[in-house]
C-alpha cells in the first residue's frame, strides 16, 4: 500500500467523521440501547475504518459500514469484559439477539435514527437546560468545554447535567423514538425551541467566547437544515430555518467596528449576506405553501420584508403590520404587541405608534423590558417631547443589562441633551 493511498483513506475517514459521526452514533444508540455503549462503539468503528480502509478502499455506503462495524465491536467488547463482569455476557447475548432479529440496515431507518436522537435529547421530561446541553453534546458533537463556554458555565457542571440527563433517559425509560402523529406538534415545538435557543445564544449574547458563539449559530442552522431534510413538509421547520438565515444575513452589520450596536436603519445593507437572504426568502414562501403557518414562519416573513427593503423608509411597513397582526393572533405576547406598535409608528407616524406603546405598557408585562422604554423614548423624541424622551431613555438605561446596550442608550441621551 502506498503512502498516498493511506493519506487519502485517512482524509476520507476524517471527512466522513465530520459529516456522519452523529448519525452513526444515533443508529448505534438504537441498536445498542445505551448512549455510552454507543459512543464507545462509534469510536471503535472509526478506528477500524482507519485501519481497514487504506487497503480495502472506502466502502460504497460508509455510514452503514460504520454502524455495522460499531455493532460488532460492541458485541466483542461485551464478550471480552464478560470474563471479569458476568452481567456483560447477558448484554452480549442481548445484542446478538437483536442483531439476529434485524441484521440489515437500510438508509431510511438510519435517517430515522437521527430524528430519534434529536427528539430524545429534546424530550419534555428533561429540564430545558439538560435538553440544550444534551443536544449540543450528542447531536452537534460540541465538547462539554465548548458548551460550558457558550453558556457561561463550568465544564463539570455541564458534564454532570449530561450524565444526569442520560441517567434519566435510561432509568425512566424515555423511549428512543420519533413521536406519534398525535404528539408530533408539541414535541416538534420543543425541538424547534431548543434549536432557536441555541441560535439566539450564539447570535445575541454579547459576552462569552466569540468563536464558540459563531459555532452555535452555525450548528443551529445546520440542525435546521437536517431537520428540514427529514421533515420536508413541516411549515415551522422551514420557517425556523428561514428565520435563522435571515437574522444571520445581517451578522456583519449588527455592531460597528468599535463594538457599538447599530440599529436596523443605520446598518450598511450592502454588507448583508445576499445568499442567505435569497435562501431564507425561498424558505418563507415554502412555509406559506404548506398552509400550516406558525410563529416562526411569520417572524421569518417579517425578517424577509426587512431584508428585501433597500432602506428603512422604503420598507413595506403596511405588510409588516399585517404580519404582526397574524403573529398577535397565533402567539400573543407583550413583545409582539410592542413590535407591532413600532411598525405602526413607521407607517402612520410617531403619534399613532406612541399611543399603542403606552397601551401595551399599561397592560403590564413590559415594565422591566428596557427596549419598551427605549422605543417609547424614540417616539417621544420624534414628537419633540424632549423631557419625556430623556426620562424614558433614563428608564431604559437603568433596565439594560448588557454593556453595549447601556452605551447605546447613553449615546442617545447625550444626543438629546
Amino acid at each position: 500500500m502506498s503512502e498516498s493511498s493511506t493519506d487519502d483513506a485517512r482524509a476520507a475517514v476524517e471527512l466522513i467523521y465530520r459529516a456522519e459521526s452523529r448519525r452513526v452514533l444515533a443508529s448505534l444508540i438504537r441498536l445498542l440501547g445505551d448512549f455510552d455503549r454507543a459512543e464507545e462503539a462509534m469510536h471503535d468503528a472509526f478506528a477500524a475504518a482507519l485501519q481497514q480502509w487504506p487497503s480495502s478502499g472506502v466502502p460504497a455506503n460508509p455510514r452503514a459500514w460504520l454502524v455495522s462495524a460499531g455493532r460488532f465491536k460492541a458485541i466483542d467488547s461485551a464478550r471480552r469484559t464478560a470474563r471479569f463482569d458476568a452481567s456483560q455476557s447477558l448484554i452480549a447475548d442481548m445484542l446478538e439477539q437483536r442483531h439476529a432479529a434485524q441484521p440489515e440496515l437500510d438508509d431510511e431507518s438510519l435517517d430515522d435514527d437521527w430524528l430519534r436522537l434529536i427528539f430524545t435529547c429534546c424530550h419534555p421530561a428533561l429540564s430545558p437546560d439538560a435538553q440544550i446541553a444534551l443536544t449540543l453534546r450528542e447531536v452537534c458533537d460540541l465538547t462539554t468545554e465548548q458548551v460550558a463556554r457558550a453558556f457561561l458555565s463550568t465544564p463539570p457542571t455541564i458534564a454532570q447535567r449530561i450524565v444526569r440527563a442520560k441517567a434519566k433517559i435510561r432509568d425512566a425509560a424515555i423511549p428512543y423514538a420519533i413521536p406519534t402523529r398525535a404528539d408530533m406538534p408539541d414535541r416538534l415545538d420543543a425541538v424547534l425551541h431548543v434549536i432557536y435557543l441555541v441560535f439566539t445564544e450564539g447570535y445575541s449574547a454579547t459576552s462569552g467566547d466569540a468563536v464558540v458563539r459563531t459555532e452555535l449559530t452555525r450548528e443551529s442552522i445546520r440542525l435546521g437544515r437536517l431537520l428540514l431534510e427529514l421533515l420536508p413538509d413541516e411549515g415551522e421547520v422551514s420557517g425556523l430555518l428561514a428565520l435563522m438565515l435571515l437574522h444571520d444575513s445581517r451578522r456583519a452589520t449588527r455592531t460597528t467596528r468599535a463594538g457599538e450596536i447599530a440599529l436596523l436603519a443605520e446598518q450598511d445593507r450592502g454588507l448583508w449576506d445576499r445568499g442567505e437572504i435569497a435562501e431564507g426568502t425561498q424558505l418563507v414562501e415554502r412555509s406559506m405553501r404548506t398552509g400550516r403557518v406558525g410563529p416562526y414562519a411569520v417572524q421569518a416573513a417579517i425578517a424577509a420584508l426587512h431584508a428585501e427593503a433597500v432602506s428603512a423608509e422604503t420598507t413595506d411597513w403596511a405588510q409588516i403590520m399585517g404580519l404582526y397582526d397574524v403573529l398577535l393572533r397565533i402567539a400573543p405576547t407583550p413583545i409582539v404587541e410592542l413590535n407591532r406598535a413600532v411598525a405602526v409608528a413607521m407607517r402612520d407616524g410617531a403619534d399613532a405608534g406612541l399611543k399603542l406603546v403606552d397601551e401595551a405598557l399599561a397592560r403590564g408585562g413590559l415594565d422591566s423590558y428596557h427596549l419598551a422604554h427605549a422605543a417609547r423614548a424614540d417616539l417621544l423624541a420624534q414628537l419633540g417631547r424632549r423631557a419625556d424622551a430623556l426620562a424614558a431613555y433614563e428608564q431604559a438605561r437603568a433596565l439594560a443589562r448588557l454593556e453595549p446596550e447601556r452605551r447605546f442608550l447613553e449615546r442617545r441621551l447625550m444626543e438629546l441633551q
Partner: protein
Amino acid sequence: MKYLCLIYENEQAWAAMSQPDADTMLKEYHAFTDGYTKSGHVLGSNALQPTHTATTVRVRNGKMSTTDGPFAETREQLGGYYLLEAKDLNEAIQIAAKIPGARTGGIEVRPIMEFPRD
C-alpha cells in the same frame, strides 16, 4: 416498566367541593380505574385520607420520634396513587394525563426501582 403515579392535589379544594362536583369527580376516577385495569395498565391504586390523619415516623440514633402530619407545609398534598405497567415513559405520561386529578393538581410519575435478584 412499572411507574408509580403520585397524585398531588390541594386537599382543601377537595373538601370545599360541592357534593355533585365531588360525585362527578369520583365517577371519573372509577371510569379511569376500571378502563386501565381492564387494559392491564393499572396494577394497583389507592386514595389516601387527608394529611390531618397522617403521622410521620423518624428514627434518629436509635430513638423513634413520631410527629403529627406531613413534614412540610405545601400547597399540594399526596392524595392517592396508581401503580402502572407501561411500555415506556411516553405511555406512562399519556395514561397519567388521563387521571382526573391531573386537571386540578399534578401527577408525579416515578419509575419503580428494579433490584436484580439472584
